[in-house]
């Protein structure tokens, strides 16, 4: 069977090989990351009670596949902070065009924290269907995401 490949727009480039966690619904940044960040935890455990896809899951160092982020406008600052703390997901992979809050977050992280967080958007709806939490994926510099066997 041919490998499933998704090509998107590179916002913050980078390479990654590892596990994916998939949020099929909009990811509420504040609700998802705040609990671990407030506790100054070493890793993020998703804390959004309204999102069973990420609730209770480790989100540090993984590739987070999502449509967009939603919720409070502290969202960008939350992303910047978790990047500064070094507990951020390694990559944010958006099926849709990145939303303004997540965009703020990754641009702030890049310019003000020298973060290496990877961000790719416009990967298409199928990525949410074809990639499942726990699947192994690779990401290349040119914005290609590959679902590995």
């Amino acid at each position: 069977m041919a490998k499933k490949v998704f090509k998107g727009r590179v916002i913050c480039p980078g390479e990654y090989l590892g596990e994916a966690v998939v949020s099929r619904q909009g990811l509420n940044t504040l609700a998802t990351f705040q609990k671990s960040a407030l506790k100054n935890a070493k890793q993020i455990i998703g804390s959004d009670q309204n999102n069973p896809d990420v609730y209770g899951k480790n989100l540090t160092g993984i590739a987070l596949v999502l449509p967009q982020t939603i919720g409070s406008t502290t969202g960008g600052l939350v992303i910047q902070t978790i990047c500064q703390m070094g507990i951020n997901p390694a990559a944010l992979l958006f099926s849709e065009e990145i939303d303004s809050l997540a965009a703020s977050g990754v641009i702030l992280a890049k310019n003000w924290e020298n973060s290496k967080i990877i961000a790719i958007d416009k990967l298409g709806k199928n990525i949410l269907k074809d990639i499942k939490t726990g699947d192994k994926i690779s990401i290349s510099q040119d914005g290609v995401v590959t679902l590995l066997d």
Partner: protein
Amino acid sequence: MKLTKEEKEILNGAQGQTKAKIMKTLVEFGDLFGAEKFVPVTTNGHLVTSFGIGLLKPVYRIMDEIIDAGLKTPYPFTVDPRPIDYKNVKCGLLNKLVFSKIMYSQQSHYEQQLSKIGLKNKNAFTCTCYLDEVGNTPKYGDVLSWAESSAVVFANSVLGARCNRNSGMLDIFGALLGKVPKFGLLTDEGRKADWVIEIKTKKLPEAQILGSAIGMKVMEQVPYIVGLDKFLGSELTDDVISYLKDFGAATASNGAVGLYHIENLTPEAKKLKQKLLKDKVKKYVIDDKELERVYKSYPVMWKNKDAKPTLCFIGCPHLSFNQLIDWTKKLQQNLKEAKRKKVCVRTVMTAAPDVVEKFKQMQEYALLIKMGVKLSSICPLMYTNNPIAGGKPIITNSNKLRTYSKSRYYKDDEIAKIICGVK
């Protein structure tokens, strides 16, 4: 983005490295969304970050950098509510220790930083900066550099101002630079509706549940709502403004709505009518059954789901003056029915400092306090967002607070009965 000569100079460091980095951040942000140019910010700012949480180290570091560079906003700004009010929202020693020494250890330092770069005044701490009493009320067509999702959606939808859903930090950057990239909700095209929402309920829907239903359905897209003017009328009265404040907050927190139009009511819908619809729109019909489905879908996050509530927050976003009067009456009626003089659940109502000052001149204030209710300008979300409060059975009529904390949501009438002990 096409930059002017001056903007290019700023980007190249002619006005200092900090301003250059601010410009670079905003240019990259604008480029990502296809902005062609910057447009001037035309009025006061509003910032979302009001809380001096120790862990937000990037904020304090960047603020110091801004202060050291001598930068100030051309217009004064307001900011979201403070996270602490020991006088009116009492807490035990352990809570105080956690709040003052751990969670909000930077509060006083951060407020000093805000003052240095352009904070309006000591009463500037509220999420409802747009209310008349507070006075940060943009005009139709004003361009804003605001964050705070509930304030952005109100300014866009009810006032007809233009603002994107900016994040914390970018709100400060735009306010400092006096410019924001023109894209999205700053353009005529970006303000057109992707959805038609048909309201087919038998009575005026609960604002917080209707907003939640629409937010969860349309996410960041723009809804055009028909059938709501049947209940709300076609004028932005004080009561309608209060309703839309709560409705919008729920659309923004349960989804990511930055702008909505209500047929025959909100300014652009009145002016442009169905010209506001995109060529292809999706449709969502909301009836009483759908609202009940959404209401029933909210999970109860308390450890003991049958626990008796120990605290109730009413006012997220902050209550308007009218709402304070209405809640006083509502509680009076319910206490009479319960044959009680005071509420039986510790209750805190929250409103902007300027609204509280006005309300204190009214006889209803004395009545409300006599009923055992505390009045504060605290941010309920910041208060409940800590490991100690997070474990307590807190109830609220705010869908925003429900979303970001473990607080349990009840409709207005239900919550009035609970806190008054009506069986």
